[in-house]
């Protein structure tokens, strides 16, 4: 069915849009005038629409990507026949993380359940951890636990997929079973007691289930309950799952009903055995009443958290009067919101259940009337509606203050806890979202909300200021009439010249305001643009004039190519000012006289036709990419005879080139997103001559060097612009100025900002100075190193010392920009450094010599030899600058400066990897197979109580294999990073574990306390930099997830967090003030 007029329109439109100029006019002139008029309208509309198409296409592409994610999340892959050594049978179930099949193992011959997780981007390291965890869980052997046999990974054509094999249970989920078997209340209580037995067994082995729900408890034909899925998938997705659920769906589905309030709010960090007790309570409640205690279906995350934390479930006896009494008391005790009021262990719950069955008195007590009254107040004060209202409304209202002082204090404490937990949950999500495209908007919304909320003092911390700084607009953007093809900053840095699709213009580099237009707009496609070295003129290439030169002040055309060679595309103005070089679509390289336009040199078949692959150094020497995929260099003055190949041939062809100012380094980019840097000043076969890195997913359209040659910028069709470390091509930042292809990028003079633009008609100037997550970096030139940089801050100064190999570098941290300013570098025959608490002395050690120098003038203050070598670590006592500790393998040495012999020595028997000096002669150490150990060196000193060392040490067995130890600013706690990926907060002096911070998925290499003691930062081999609330152990922000990092330090003012990454660079996170 088609309208005849529309059909005629379409036909003519289709023919007309295939041609242009004269032929189109002829075609339209021959047609019916009314029809032709309409078709002209359509053609105009189509051309006008072209500008928007890039945006629309990009938007469609983004939709498709979203759909792709959705599809892989919901995934219904084809049924595999074989996975590893398993022959696959029927599909048993589909879960959030993967599919479960019945499978047969050939040797040993047995039937198993095989859980194959969805393919995700997981690293080899995560795989290894997944396997290790499966082995650990394999040791759980209990009649009530489905045995894990082994873990592995397979590739079924969707990328690597981890799987694990476990005991095949044929049975129904516990709730379904109880109903089918028509169990009475006694039968149900007994069933929960048996599940609790299994959970208790796991707890005794140190395993917390974390995701206990009826779907994970099956009852087999013999009536034996079997618990499945003990956190085996945790390493794959420990931190991300909640956040993904939230950001992608806006809702939490599924298992929220079984999550304890602290788990829901505090995430992985809050999980302990009592979360499983809570889940057992929910199962018990559900088995007794037929429903879950709290229904969160359809609630958003914040509402659900609010609900879980504030609302008490209906008492079971309200639903069924027969449940009044002990049974109800037991269920409600397991469901207490405060973990401390809950059964401490699964065994306690099982015991009480059995007492009730045997008609013995139970241990649980119904809550006292006074307690209930307090809860009532809290609940009604808490139910004030929205989150913000909740936070503002509760604290210290007048009616409330009129009640007893004690009551208001308790309620206030409870509400403060809640406010902190909600705050932590939101910062965590916001920080995760911030790394996504569009995340800035989310950050902005978040910081606005929480900057107004009245929260308890100390709730907002470093992360809040940081996010505020990050969410500030990072640059300036202006709309242009057309898409940008190329841009160039004027020699004095004051202007930027732009080649846009149908015009060329000059804009103010600071305000981006238009200054002058070069010729009339429209009608011609401008390909490239460049400034004369004196900044008075601009050269352009366009499809009508070919090469043309303009007065930069007036916009008047000075000359255009007399021969009208309209095939010119790339253009560069020689630094001598007298020549202009162009490449052409026909592959011709030309040099024109800059005064007249006369053609001076012509080299046939010199360059690629379809791209502007021309770059010039500060002396006029050029490189072009030729038709054979090679890069050829022509020294100035240009002559075909002196050409020499300097790079390539590339497998794909080169699409962008950039020579640095001195012409010694060449950056090339290809159609596949790879950037290669070639050192033209080194021998062709030198090992460090070339370096390549895959940087973008699509073709790179332009490359630019920073003025100081330390940075490279690349724009790409993958809709992003990247800022790279020139020495190792590590991406430092990525900009997504608009969801469209990016065509050009260049630095401001002084490298303070980047200009960028592309298909979406926008010009963006992104600041590299303020509010940028990646500030300034340093690196040992030309090497990708995995050495850990060692950091030391000098208190009361702006100085930062870093150590890399044997190089000690001094930096200054200017307050305004947060950029690291290089001061000096010096070589020390040393492997470790430490700064005295007063900042005046720097200690370094090398093999068996310790040296103290003045931090001011580098004068040697003392040096002495040690009895053991090599010295791996050094520390000053915080309370006495004359006390220095060192360790060499397992030997701990204490020195008084001026005394050559150690005043105390202790052989710990195992290699020390981490040390922290405490006050009063105490030292905390830990290492390989050496759990956290507190040593009182004064007891070891001559005349001390314990020269043998036995009584001088205290050990925290839970902190096995520490890799970093730091004491809190008030000296009451230690933060201990472990190679088991945990960070423990340990109380002094007893070394009781206060918090176990779970969020890393790799060895934790560094921990640091913020100077106010409110935050702990940690960095690990997993690339994550995490920020924790030191009081409640909640994760409050994820700062980074791509930079494996070692040491980190807060500045003394708490405004900056400095992280040494494994790539040898230093990242400075600067929080707004």
């Amino acid at each position, binding site marked *: 069915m088609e309208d005849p007029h529309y059909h005629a329109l379409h036909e003519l439109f*289709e023919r007309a849009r295939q041609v242009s100029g004269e032929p189109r006019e002829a075609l339209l002139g021959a047609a019916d005038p009314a029809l032709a008029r309409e078709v002209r309208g359509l053609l105009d509309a*189509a051309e006008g*629409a072209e500008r928007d198409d890039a945006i629309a296409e990009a*938007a469609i592409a983004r939709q498709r990507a979203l759909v792709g994610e959705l599809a892989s999340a919901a995934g*219904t892959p084809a049924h595999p026949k074989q996975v590893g050594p398993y022959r696959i049978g029927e599909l048993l179930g589909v879960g959030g993380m993967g599919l479960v099949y019945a499978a047969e193992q050939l040797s040993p011959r047995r039937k198993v359940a095989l859980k194959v997780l969805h393919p995700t981007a997981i690293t080899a390291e995560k795989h290894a951890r997944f396997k290790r965890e499966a082995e650990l869980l394999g040791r759980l052997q209990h009649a009530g636990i489905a045995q894990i046999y082994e873990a592995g990974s397979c590739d079924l054509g969707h990328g690597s997929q981890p799987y694990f094999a476990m005991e095949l249970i044929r049975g129904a989920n516990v709730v379904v079973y109880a109903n089918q078997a028509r169990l009475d209340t006694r039968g149900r209580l007994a069933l929960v007691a048996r599940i609790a037995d299994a959970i208790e067994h796991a707890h005794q082995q140190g395993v917390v289930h974390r995701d206990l729900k009826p779907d994970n408890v099956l009852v087999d034909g013999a009536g034996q309950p079997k618990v499945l899925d003990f956190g085996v998938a945790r390493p794959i997705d420990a931190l991300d799952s909640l956040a993904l659920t*939230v950001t*992608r*769906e806006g809702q939490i589905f599924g298992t929220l009903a079984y999550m304890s309030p602290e788990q829901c709010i505090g995430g992985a960090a809050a999980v302990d055995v009592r979360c499983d007790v809570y889940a057992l309570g929910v199962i018990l409640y559900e088995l007794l009443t037929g429903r879950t205690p709290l229904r969160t279906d359809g609630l958003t995350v914040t509402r659900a958290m609010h609900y879980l934390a504030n609302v008490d479930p209906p008492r079971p006896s309200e639903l069924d009067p027969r449940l009044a009494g002990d049974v109800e008391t037991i269920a409600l005790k397991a469901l207490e919101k405060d973990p401390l009021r809950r059964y401490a262990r699964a065994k306690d719950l099982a015991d009480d259940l059995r007492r009730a069955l045997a008609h013995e008195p139970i241990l649980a007590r119904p809550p006292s009337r006074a307690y209930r009254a307090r809860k009532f107040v809290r609940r009604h004060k808490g139910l004030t509606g929205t989150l913000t209202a909740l936070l503002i409304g509760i604290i210290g209202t007048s009616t409330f203050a009129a009640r007893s002082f004690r009551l208001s204090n308790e309620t206030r404490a409870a509400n403060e806890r809640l406010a902190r937990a909600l705050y932590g949950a939101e910062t965590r999500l916001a920080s995760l979202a911030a790394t996504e495209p569009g995340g800035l908007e989310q950050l902005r919304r978040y910081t606005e909300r929480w900057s107004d909320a009245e929260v308890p003092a100390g709730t907002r911390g470093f992360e809040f200021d940081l996010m505020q700084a990050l969410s500030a607009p990072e640059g300036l953007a202006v709309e242009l009439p057309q898409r940008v093809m190329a841009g160039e900053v004027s020699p004095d840095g004051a202007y930027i010249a732009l080649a846009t699709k149908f015009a060329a213009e000059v804009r103010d580099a600071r305000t981006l305001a238009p200054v002058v237009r070069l010729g009339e707009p429209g009608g011609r496609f401008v390909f490239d643009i460049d400034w004369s070295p004196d900044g008075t003129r601009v050269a352009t290439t366009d499809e009508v004039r070919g090469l043309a030169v303009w007065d930069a002040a007036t916009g008047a055309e000075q000359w255009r190519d007399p021969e009208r060679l309209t095939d010119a595309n790339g253009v560069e103005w020689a630094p001598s000012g007298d020549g202009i070089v162009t490449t052409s679509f026909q592959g011709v390289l030309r040099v024109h006289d800059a005064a007249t336009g006369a053609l001076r040199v012509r080299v046939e078949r010199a360059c690629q036709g379809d791209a502007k692959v021309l770059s010039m150094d500060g002396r006029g020497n050029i490189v072009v990419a030729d038709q054979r995929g090679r890069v050829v260099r022509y020294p100035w003055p240009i002559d075909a005879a002196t050409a020499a190949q300097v790079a390539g041939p590339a497998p794909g062809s080169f699409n962008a080139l950039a020579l640095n100012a001195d012409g010694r380094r060449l950056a090339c980019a290809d159609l596949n997103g790879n950037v290669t840097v070639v050192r033209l000043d080194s021998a062709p076969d030198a090992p460090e001559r070339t370096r390549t890195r895959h940087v973008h997913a699509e073709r790179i359209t332009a490359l630019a060097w920073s003025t100081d040659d330390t940075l490279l910028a690349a724009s790409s069709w993958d809709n992003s612009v990247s800022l790279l470390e020139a020495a190792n091509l590590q991406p430092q930042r990525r900009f997504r100025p608009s969801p469209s292809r990016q065509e050009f990028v260049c630095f401001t003079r002084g490298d303070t900002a980047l200009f960028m633009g592309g298909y979406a008609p926008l010009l963006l100037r992104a600041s590299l100075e303020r509010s940028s997550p990646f500030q300034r970096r340093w690196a040992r030139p030309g090497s990708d190193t995995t050495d850990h940089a060692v950091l030391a801050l000098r208190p009361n100064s702006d100085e930062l010392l870093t150590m890399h190999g044997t190089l000690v570098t001094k930096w200054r941290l200017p307050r305004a920009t947060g950029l690291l300013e290089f001061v000096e570098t010096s070589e020390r025959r040393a492997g470790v450094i430490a700064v005295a608490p007063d900042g005046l002395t720097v200690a370094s050690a090398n093999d068996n010599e310790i040296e103290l120098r003045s931090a001011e003038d580098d004068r040697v203050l003392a040096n002495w030899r040690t009895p053991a070598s090599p010295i791996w670590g050094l520390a000053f006592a915080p309370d006495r600058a004359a006390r220095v500790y060192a360790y060499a393998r397992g030997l701990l040495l204490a020195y008084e400066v001026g005394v050559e012999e150690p005043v105390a020595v202790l052989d710990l028997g195992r290699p020390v990897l981490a040390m922290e000096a405490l006050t009063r002669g105490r030292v905390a150490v830990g290492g390989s197979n050496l759990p956290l150990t507190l040593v009182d060196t004064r007891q070891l000193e001559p005349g001390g109580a314990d020269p043998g060392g036995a009584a001088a040490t205290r050990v925290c067995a839970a902190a096995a294999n520490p890799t970093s130890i730091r004491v809190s600013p008030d000296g009451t706690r230690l933060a201990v990073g472990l190679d088991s990926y945990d960070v423990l907060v340990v109380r002094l002096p007893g070394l009781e574990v206060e918090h176990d911070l779970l969020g890393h998925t790799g060895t934790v290499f560094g921990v640091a306390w913020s100077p106010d003691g409110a935050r702990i930062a940690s960095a690990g081999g997993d690339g994550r930099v995490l920020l924790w609330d030191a009081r409640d152990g909640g994760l409050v922000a994820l700062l980074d997830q791509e930079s494996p990092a070692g040491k980190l330090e807060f500045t003394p003012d708490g405004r900056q967090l400095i992280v040494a990454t494994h790539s040898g660079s230093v990242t400075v996170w600067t929080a707004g003030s």
Partner: protein
Amino acid sequence: MTDLNGPEITRLLRAARSGDPSVQERLLELVYDRLHGIAARLFVGQPLGVTLQPTALVHEAWLKLEANDGEFNDRQHFFLVAARAMRNVLADAARRRNSQSRGDGASRVPLEDVLSLAVDDGSALDALVLEEGLTELERLNVVHARLVELRVFAGMTALEAGQALQLKPSEVESAWAMAKAWLRRRWSQS
């Protein structure tokens, strides 16, 4: 609300291939209900997180259907129906909101992302303006209207949409250019 995952929708989808218009209408109704349900659940009052886009919604509905009935495999046909249903959902929502907000000045309901093809005054395209244009285009050339639906509301590529509509690639390109130009011209005149 009839459940999309019920057997009826699968049966109807199979039957719809015969081209019976009453079946098509019934199917559209069912899918509309389902999408409307998902949309109501997801679009309303979210303090956190990203809203699901219309196209993602359509795909989610498809994945649920497919997971429910593994044998059934007529993605293209489902999308034809779902894109139309999605268009109706959005247009209805826009009308409803317009009628609610009448009087306080705020009457435009801009569509996000895919639909934000800027018109000449630079403002985002209104859902209802698109709806009116599509309704008229439907009368003139139903294939062109379906093509726009598939691309805009179901996020299909030109190639996919062409397959669903049984068009050759060259025909798709020509039809897409024409439909866009026509819609755009209509907007610039209105």
